[in-house]
């Protein structure tokens, strides 16, 4: 039996300032098997994005253990965490986070810059990823020349260009109209079903969440069963 894609045990995150201590997540236990498409729901400020950041190794927990594909990450060094993010994880953000001064193709190849990949192989992989999201014809465009839906598709191409085992999507349709939102969700579904990519998606949209395999609800930093 293969290791779960993500395993969280008693994970907490506390933000501390001089005067205030805020518990964003409180003793979360969660296991997501490989190949599952999970959505995380909850009201604003409940800790959804914090949970996603911890699972995506973008932030460190205050307490608890995180395993990614069976590997404990608590004692890994910064460079080792970066390598896991680069090889195993892809990210799609609500506000796309495309680099405006780079062409679509240059944006998509960014994750491969941090691997030992030749320039030609990198460009080819980026073109293939763009083809998968239906944007091959736009690869020399710049992000400002694209619609919101197209920008998010570029962001998805960038997330999958390195063929990660896990994809984290933080409200990927939050800045899009419903039609564009459907298109993006359809791409994510295809990825999950055709490539077996584990997908964890934060969303406010109940309808979209219902199209995923499991819904995890968070309230005040705690999981609701």
């Amino acid at each position, binding site marked *: 039996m293969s290791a779960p894609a993500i395993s969280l045990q008693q994970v907490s995150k506390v933000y501390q300032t001089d005067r205030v201590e805020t518990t964003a997540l409180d003793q979360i236990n969660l296991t997501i098997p490989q190949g599952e498409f999970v959505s995380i729901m909850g009201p604003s400020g409940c800790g959804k994005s914090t949970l996603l*950041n911890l699972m*995506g190794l*973008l*932030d*460190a927990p205050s307490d608890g253990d995180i395993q990614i594909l069976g590997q404990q990450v608590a004692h890994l060094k*910064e*460079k080792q965490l*970066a*390598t896991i*993010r*680069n*090889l195993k994880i892809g*990210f799609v*953000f609500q506000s796309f*986070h495309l*680099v405006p*001064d*780079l*062409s679509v193709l*240059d944006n998509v*190849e*960014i*994750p491969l*810059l*941090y*691997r030992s990949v030749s*320039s030609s192989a990198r460009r080819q992989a980026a073109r293939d990823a763009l083809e998968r999201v239906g944007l091959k014809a736009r690869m020399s465009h710049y992000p400002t020349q694209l619609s919101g839906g197209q920008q998010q598709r570029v962001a998805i191409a*960038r997330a999958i260009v*390195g063929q990660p085992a896990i994809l984290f999507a933080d409200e990927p349709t939050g800045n899009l109209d419903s039609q564009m939102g459907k298109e993006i969700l359809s791409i994510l579904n295809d990825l999950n079903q055709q490539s077996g990519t584990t997908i964890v998606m934060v969303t406010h949209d109940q309808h979209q969440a219902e199209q995923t395999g499991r819904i995890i609800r968070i309230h005040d930093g705690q999981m609701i069963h």
Partner: protein
Amino acid sequence: MLMHLFRLIWNRKLSNLLIILELTLAFVVLYFVSATALHLWSMYNRPLGFEWQSHYSMTINQGAEASESDMERLNGMIDRLEQRSDIDWVHIVKQALFQNWHWSTSINHEGDYIQTYMNTLSDGAAEDLGVTLLSGRFFNEGDAGQAWLPVLINRAVSERLFGEGVDPLGQNINPPSEDQPDQEQTEYRVIGVIEDFRQSGEFWGDEYYVLARFDTSRNDTFANSLVIRPQDGLSATFEASLLQEMTQMAPSWNITVRPLADYRQDRIRSVMTPIILSGIVAGFLLLMVAFGLFGVLWQNVTRRTHELGLRRALGASAADIFKQITIEMMLVASFAIVLGTLITIQFTLLGTFSSLNWMTTIKGSVLAAVVLLMLVAICTLYPGWIASRKQPADALRYE
């Protein structure tokens, strides 16, 4: 990665324009400081062509146009000096060493004219001053009474007037003009070739030099400058006693006795003082550039917090981010260096400054580029470190 960063910089060329202009200006300033410093250093390291370390200079201002009796008196003074037990030798060196006394003249060989500096030395002076003879001989009494004046030319004059294939010894310079036979012109004959005689010291930049013989038996010419070599174990009262003795012989003359080392030091100081002042001004300018660069880089890194956070999220390590910031700035600086080189090379092509030959230009450009890249690297350290320390989640949240 390099191509990716190059594309990124190129696409941001407008926002990088000001910083490129600032770095270009800094490069041009650095180039001039470096080229000047290298030129001076190269001049300083060239042999002077004579010894000066323990010698004294005696300069004479007789106050009016020299007469025959003045020359007789001067010869008497030389005789007296030679008799002193604390003096090794005394010679006439008409254009005083390490001072602003210069004689420039035009000479020609078979119609090929050059402008050269000249000096006249009495017999034995060149040998005793340790002048390096490459070929031929020094002056002696046998040279007196010739229709031509014997001269020693330096290597540069030899190569310029006679080239490599012709032996300059015995060749005449300034032969009587066939077109104007009445024109009064001294004819010289080359009796020796010397390495060099850099009369005004280490920063003497002119190439051509000719030493002619000073004939002490003639009373129609006067010399205002002597070089004296005292015996070893010089007494503290040497200068004073010398001056007193000479003043007694010529009370109306204004006589100065000083070590050549002092004149040399004055000469170096007079050249170095404006150079050092210019260097200080250039240093402050560079400091301003460094502050500006530091501020711009910091602002640049802050503005790009999202992008750098995104790169961290996509797999860049802190070291990768630091490397990216550094390489980006090095590329921007390299672009400024190329632009600056295109500007500075014009000065060499146009021959604006005689000191800027191609070798100095190349060395000066390389030195300026190295200093500028080091400056940029130093200014990149802290903003690069700040950028690389940010947690990806914090960077992506940054407003």
